[in-house]
């Protein structure tokens, strides 16, 4: 039985096209799929990253609030900033390290002393103290340098400052993104 010209054409064409489309689909899939995966996991990873930053930002803020209330507001009764920071860290440090073991924290207290700014106390985790981006050690900084590089608000009416820094190395959970390496999250609050 002879097929009509039209039927024959469609059958042959369909077979031909089907085979070609399968190839195209695979090629397209090979191109698109990694991109879609990249975007999907990237968005997911970015959300986790932001969530971790939010957590650390909140931690920095709340610790700073506590240290500020205990060590900055009372000007007369509090004379030993180191003791004060130690008390604050003793109160909250256990909670912080047990709930966020990967976090490094450092609380620093600075006080204006004439024309210089002294580091009057520092408390926190060893890693936090070691990595602080604020001046440490026993050598006081001149007020001008401290204001220029760190806290411009420091002055005759703002003689005491508490700084809380929070560090966390953010491990990329998805091996897909390891090409970007791990990120160090840094959050800081100045009271």
């Amino acid at each position, binding site marked *: 039985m002879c097929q009509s010209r039209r039927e024959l*054409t469609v059958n042959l064409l369909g077979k031909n096209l089907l085979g070609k489309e399968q190839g195209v689909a695979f090629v397209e899939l090979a191109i698109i799929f990694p991109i879609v995966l990249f975007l999907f996991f990237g968005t997911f990873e970015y959300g986790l990253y932001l969530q971790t930053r*939010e957590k650390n930002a909140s931690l920095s803020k709340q610790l700073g609030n506590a240290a500020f209330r205990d060590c*900055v*507001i*009372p000007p007369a009764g509090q004379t030993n900033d180191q003791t004060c920071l130690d008390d604050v860290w003793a109160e909250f440090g256990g909670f912080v390290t047990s709930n966020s073991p990967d976090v490094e924290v450092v609380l620093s207290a600075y006080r204006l002393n004439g024309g210089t700014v002294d580091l009057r106390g520092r408390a926190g985790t060893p890693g936090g103290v070691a990595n602080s981006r604020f001046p440490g050690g026993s050598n006081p900084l001149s007020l001008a340098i401290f204001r220029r590089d760190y806290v*411009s*608000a420091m002055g005759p*009416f703002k003689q005491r400052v508490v700084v809380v820094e929070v560090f966390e190395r953010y491990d990329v959970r998805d091996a897909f993104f390891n090409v970007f390496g791990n990120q160090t999250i840094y959050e800081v609050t100045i009271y």
Partner: protein
Amino acid sequence: MNVAPMSPAIRIASFRERGFAVVFAMLALFVVIAFSGMALDFGRLQRRQTDLQHAVDAAALAASAMVFEAGITRSELERTTEALVRDNLRMRGVSPASSSLAIGLQPHSLLDTEPVRQISVRATSALDPLVMDIAPFITQDFTVVAASAVAESRRIFTCLAIDTSGSMCENDGPVGSIANNNCEEVRDLKAGVISYVQLMRPEDYLGMWRFSQGPGNDLDSNCSFDRADDCENDGRHIAVEALVMVPMTRVGRDGLVQILQRPPYQNVLDSHPYTPTNGYSGLQGCRLQITGNPNYNGAVDYGAIIYFSDGVPWTAGESDLTAFSPGCSVELDNYPTSLTAAQRSNYDDIARKVHMGRWINTINQADLARNSGLTVYAIALGDPNAKYPRLDAFQGLPGTSSSETLVKDILMARIANDQVFLQKEFQEDTNDPNSLRYSGAANFPCVPDRDSIRGPEGKMVQTADSGDLRQILRDIGLSIKAKLVR
């Protein structure tokens, strides 16, 4: 079989379909990329919002503590506040150039004469979205985020209502003795009061009432325990003594501390007659002291009563909250007005009613204080080490269960209107279904529900170690002195 060559029309059709697949893929990819870009944009916006909010919160709160620095001007306060916001933003990696700030000081005074009470900080920051400002279907402007904070530094009128009954001198010497001035609780309490005073500023006021109990004056027989009866006009509160209502401007913070340490006030907290406590009189005295102060303006000032007691509910034999159920009158029939020595030493039903009546009246007085806009803080003292020779932890009677501790906490929370505590549900012993069970709103003492307690919420703090008093009082003082209000 011969196959005819493909017609031009069919070739075009096949090309069209293949092109469609590519176009479709590109469109899909574009949509996926667009949504991913939006996710990134939202993340960046959220991140910037967090940075701004934290910066303005920190700056506003810090600035509120600078309000009363000697010699500070409004312009200097504004400058320092703005600098603090920018410091926080800069250290968080936000370019100060991308942000703008507005600092507001209230009350506003061009003459620079009125003290600042409120500092408002508003910050806006611009950033460049990846896709959200080019997406045609998004009309909202996502290029700017804003944050604001308002902090208050208020004039504080505090009255301390202090239990100076015998049990407050429990650790050293005979009960009720002030031998060698070694009363542990009172000594710790003094240190706490001083630390609180040190937080106050020249514009603040401090008052103090101590309460204990004089013989024959256990309760006011004329007091009806009606909630409308404030028991003010009976003249029976002889065991309560007003100490001072001192404007700090007159003596200064350090001056007041010295006053507390010098005669005649040094001994004010050192009298310890062995008697049950009548805290209701202390609360009443404090309320009148604050609201009667001509300088107190309830609209703008902050009035607080801090109530201390190591008193015990002494509901032994009931171990529940029946007597404190709505109405608060179950146990008050034939209410005795005093305790004999025998009743004091031999705990009995009458003694129990007396003690419960005191608690009820204290709750009433706390409600009256709240009706006047005052915030009541309640500090429950106890002693888990049973140092007090006759009584066990938290002054529960010998042989009684820990339910009294629980009842005491609940009643102290009710005095303070500490809704965080009052809304809880817990049971004294989870292994014993018959043990005291408190089920939050269903068991509010003396009122049917939380809405019946009007006025501000306070806070109940329980400690078993009077050595904690210093920190507790400091925390209270700091929380009410400088505060973010929104």
